[in-house]
C-alpha cells in the first residue's frame, strides 16, 4: 500500500463521505471538544505490518569482523569496542566485544510507524479535517517471528471558522478533552505526535560475559563491579531515542514524553536493548501567562 490518499480502502472513503461522523471520544471529551470549537468528522485509522530482516552471514545484525571495524555501521552511528585485558586464552574466549546502534532496525521501525501515521493522516485529509485528536498508537508483535504491526487511531476534527493547516497536513495530538483545552489555554498548540525508536546490540566481551553470567572466568572480580559495557549501552539507547525525537522537533517543545525500554537477553552476556520515546510536539503561539497559584483543597467525598 502506498502513502497516497488515492489508495484509501473503498469502505473508508464511503464511510468518510457519508455525512455522519464517528469518534473515539468519551462524553466529557466530546463536550470539551465542542467547547473548543472543534467538530468531529470521523474516526480515522492507519495500519502497517512490517517484517524485520534476518540474522546470518552478511546480515546487518552481525557485529564487525574485527575490533577495528563496526560492520555495516553508517557514519555517525553509535559504536564502541571493548577489548579483553587477558590476551589470548582460548578460541572460545571473547577477546573483544562491541556495542552497536542497530540503525537498520531503527529505520524499519520508523518506516512502519511513519507509514501507519501517514495512512491515518490520509483518512483525515479525505474527511477534510484540520487535525486529529485523542490519537492512540500501538506497536505489537504478531505471531510470526519478526513481524510487527503498527496501528494508529484518532478522531479527525475541523476547527470552526479556522484556516486549514499549512500544506493541508492535519496536526495531531495524543491529547483530547480537558488536557487539550488546558494546553490551548496555556498557549501550546499541538503540531504532531512524535516518536522514535533506538536499538543497541551488546556483543559482550569476556569481562561483560563473566559479570552478567556469573562465571568467575579469567580475573573475574570478587566484589560488586559496574558492568561498564551494559551500563553504557543502556545510556546510549536512551540518549539516541531522545536525539532522534529532538531531530523532529525543529525547536518546538515535547510534552508528556513516555519512555519504554525493552531488553532481550541472549546468551553469554549478549543483549538487545530497544528504547521507544513518544510525546506531543507542541508550538507556543502566545506568551505564557502564569496561572494563579493553586489553592490547596481537601475533598470531603
Amino acid at each position, binding site marked *: 500500500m502506498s502513502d497516497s490518499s488515492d489508495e484509501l480502502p473503498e469502505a473508508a472513503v464511503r464511510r468518510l463521505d457519508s455525512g455522519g461522523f464517528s469518534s473515539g471520544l468519551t462524553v466529557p471529551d466530546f463536550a470539551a471538544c465542542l467547547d473548543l470549537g472543534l467538530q468531529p468528522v470521523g474516526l480515522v485509522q492507519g495500519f502497517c505490518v512490517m517484517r524485520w530482516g534476518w540474522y546470518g552471514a552478511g546480515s546487518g545484525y552481525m557485529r564487525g569482523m574485527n575490533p577495528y571495524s563496526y560492520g555495516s555501521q553508517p557514519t555517525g552511528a553509535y559504536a564502541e569496542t571493548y577489548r579483553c585485558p587477558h590476551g589470548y586464552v582460548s578460541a572460545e574466549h571473547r577477546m573483544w566485544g562491541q556495542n552497536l546502534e542497530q540503525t537498520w532496525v531503527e529505520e524499519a521501525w520508523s518506516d512502519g510507524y511513519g507509514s501507519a501515521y501517514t495512512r491515518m493522516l490520509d483518512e483525515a485529509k479525505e474527511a477534510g479535517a*484540520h487535525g486529529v485528536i485523542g490519537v492512540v498508537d500501538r506497536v505489537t508483535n504478531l505471531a510470526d517471528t519478526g513481524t510487527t504491526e503498527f496501528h494508529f487511531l484518532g478522531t479527525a476534527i475541523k476547527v470552526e471558522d479556522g484556516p486549514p493547516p499549512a500544506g493541508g497536513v492535519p496536526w495531531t495530538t495524543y491529547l483530547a478533552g480537558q488536557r487539550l483545552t*488546558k494546553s490551548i489555554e496555556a498557549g501550546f498548540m499541538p503540531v504532531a505526535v512524535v516518536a522514535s525508536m533506538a536499538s543497541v546490540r551488546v556483543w559482550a566481551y569476556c569481562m561483560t560475559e563473566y559479570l552478567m553470567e556469573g562465571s568467575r572466568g579469567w580475573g573475574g572480580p570478587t566484589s560488586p563491579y559496574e558492568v561498564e559495557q551494559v551500563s553504557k549501552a543502556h545510556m546510549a539507547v536512551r540518549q539516541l531515542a531522545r536525539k532522534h525525537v529532538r531531530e523532529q522537533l525543529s525547536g518546538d517543545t515535547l*510534552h508528556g514524553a513516555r519512555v519504554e525500554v525493552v531488553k532481550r537477553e541472549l546468551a553469554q552476556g549478549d543483549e538487545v536493548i530497544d528504547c521507544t520515546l513518544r510525546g506531543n510536539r507542541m508550538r507556543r503561539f502566545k506568551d505564557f501567562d502564569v496561572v494563579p497559584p493553586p489553592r490547596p483543597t481537601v475533598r470531603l467525598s
Partner: protein
Amino acid sequence: MSGTAAIDARAEMLNGARSLATAASPSKARGVTSDLSIDEALLLHAAGWEPVDLVCGVAVVSVPVGVWTWGQGQISSASEAHNAAVKGASDQLKGECMKVHGHGVVGVRVEVEVRTHHIDVELIGTAVRPIDGGDHPASPFVSDLSARDFTLLKGAGWLPVGLAFGACFTYAPRRSAGDAMKQKTQNIELTNFTEAMYTARESAMERMQRSALDVGGQGVIGVKVTEGPMSFARHAVGFTAWGTAVRLVADAHQFVQPDVILPLDDVVVAFDAQSLRGE
C-alpha cells in the same frame, strides 16, 4: 491567563489554528522535552519553575558469584552492589541535569531489578530550573516527587535535596532438622524468617536515613519499600527503601491551610481511548 479573568478557549483555539496555517521556518533551536503532564507543567510555571529536558541515568552492577548460596547474616556484597547501582544511576542523572543547566530533577521514575548476577537501576525524570535563572547549585537535586508535590512542598518552605536510598539483603537462617520435623504439623511463627526481615528492614531504613543526611536533608518523605524473599533464592530476603530527602529552606514551615470542599459533581471520566479496544 492573567489574574483570574476567564479565558475564551474557542478564541485561543482559533489563534492556535492560525499559527499553524503558515509553515514555520526551520529552526535549530534546542526544544524543551519533558515527561510532565500539561497540569504539572502549568503548576511548575505557577511556582516560578520550568522544565528543561528529559534526563536519565542507568547503572548495571554485578553481584559476585555465589553470594546467594546458604549462609548466615547479611549478604553485604549484594547490598553494596545495590547501593553502587543506585549511586551510579543517580550520578549519571545529575550529570545530564547539569549539562542542560537544570537545578534539579523532578518526577523521577525509579526502576530497580535485582537479578542473580547483577542489579540494574534506571532513573528517569525531567530536569527543571527557576524561570528567572537563579544561582546554579553545586549539585542538582534528584526527587521522585511529582511536579505537583514539588510545588506543594516548595509552598510549605521545603525543598528536595536528593534521593535517599537504602537496601539490605540477608539470609534466613536454616532451621535444624529437628525443628523442621517438629514444626511440620504446627501452626507456628518461623522466627528465622521474621528475624531476617527485621534485620534487613532496620539496616535498609538506617542506610536510607544516613544517605538523606549525607546529602544535607533533614528527613525523608514519600518513602516506598519493597520486601520479601528473592525469587531466585527463597532463603534470602531483601528489603529496599527509598524516598526524597528534604530540607527546610524557609525560616519556618509555612502552614498550607487547605479549603475544605464538598464536590457535588459525579466522578469525571478521564479520556481513555484504550477503552475502544476493550482493554
